[in-house]
């Protein structure tokens, strides 16, 4: 089991990208990754050398995110300790473009299964067949989720993105 940690380490950048795409606050995004790793580590005996460690980790991460999102939709957001001790606002990152912000916001309104597929294809640039294998769903399901996700995003972003893309700050 010693290589379990090494295997997880290889997946870490991907997990973090994924979490940071979904969760705006970097601290909370990393907390999500941390929770995912804790759970993975604790349940590592359940993994039993299935080759699909990436899919397993992504599923854990996404379930944690989806559960938290459900919870936070009707309860106040969890205050991280830094927020409690310091002014609560997290200044937006300077490097983040407006369109990325808008996309992230729109992304958060998608159902979790669509978020997952859109991130894996759009951000991770994975092939459709890879996504199907990773999530253990038929490729037809991948495609229909992708279609719905993109179309919904397009409608949501139709008003917000285009004007802001031209705005110079």
């Amino acid at each position, binding site marked *: 089991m010693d290589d379990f940690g090494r295997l997880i380490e290889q997946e870490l950048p991907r997990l973090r990208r994924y979490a940071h795409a979904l969760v705006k606050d970097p601290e909370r995004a990393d907390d999500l990754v941390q929770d995912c790793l804790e759970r993975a580590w604790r349940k590592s005996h359940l993994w039993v050398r299935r080759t699909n460690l990436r899919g397993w980790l992504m599923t854990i991460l996404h379930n944690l995110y989806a559960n938290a999102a459900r*919870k936070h939709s009707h309860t106040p957001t969890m205050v991280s300790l830094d927020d*409690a001790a310091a002014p609560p606002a997290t200044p937006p990152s300077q490097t983040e473009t407006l369109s990325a912000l808008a*996309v992230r916001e729109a*992304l958060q309104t998608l159902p979790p299964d669509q978020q997952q597929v859109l991130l894996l294809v759009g951000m991770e640039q994975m092939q459709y067949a890879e996504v199907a294998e990773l999530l253990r769903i038929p490729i037809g399901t991948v495609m229909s989720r992708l279609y719905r996700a993109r179309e919904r995003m397009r409608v949501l972003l139709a008003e917000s993105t285009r004007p802001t893309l031209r705005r110079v700050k």
Partner: protein
Amino acid sequence: MTEPTFQPSEEQLHAYVDDFLPEAERMAVERYLADHPSEALRIEAYRQQNAALQGLRALPEAHPFTLPEFRPRVRWRAVALRTAAAAVLLLAGGGGGWWLHGHLERGRPLWMRLVEQAERAHQTFVPEVVHPVEVTSAHEQHLRTWLSRRLGTPVTVPVLKRHGYDLMGGRLLPASPGPAAQFMYQDAQGNRLTLYMLAAPTGRRDTSFRYVQDGALRICYWMGQTMDFAITGEMPRDQLDGIAKSVYLQLNHMKPPRVGAW
């Protein structure tokens, strides 16, 4: 100008967006889009989504992430904390206890050390009928002074009345790396929760709340600059979350550690 027969499938259009099409197909789709402006707009919107999603790939530099150490896996969960065995080993002291102690500490992430010790202490003392605490809440002032001195840092005993829990008292515990304090609270129904404080190396930033679940038992833990904290109890996550915030805020009013003051 175009082949009127070519009508790309939805999958082809998306594969075009994702640059998955072979050259010939890609050209065909491009020609099709040139003749179908509304479709072209839709596909362009999808491409912009991809570009923006690519923009999300950048990880914040300001937040380097360190992977917890994953070392030889001791199945500490399987050590079955619910059984008496762990408590017996822990309490056995001497050879057995020390061996287990040394074995479990080596190369393990700090949070795991904290959670494990807190959970064990909880499992050991919460069922206790006769001596759940070492010093009762009747001597709270003494309890606080004593534990502050032993932990080498000011100890605040949070009040959890608002959450329905009254302080029963506390005790000093052997732990790693330094001694630990455990405070026990009880509600009107006799449910007990424990707050575990572990003296820990200084100079770190506070972490945020993290949660671990083991059966019905939930643990919320965080690591502060002078101490690590864990709250353990059988309660819904929301309730534990509320208590944790309350505890944190009360602890946060602590003055900066001045060991000399004690």
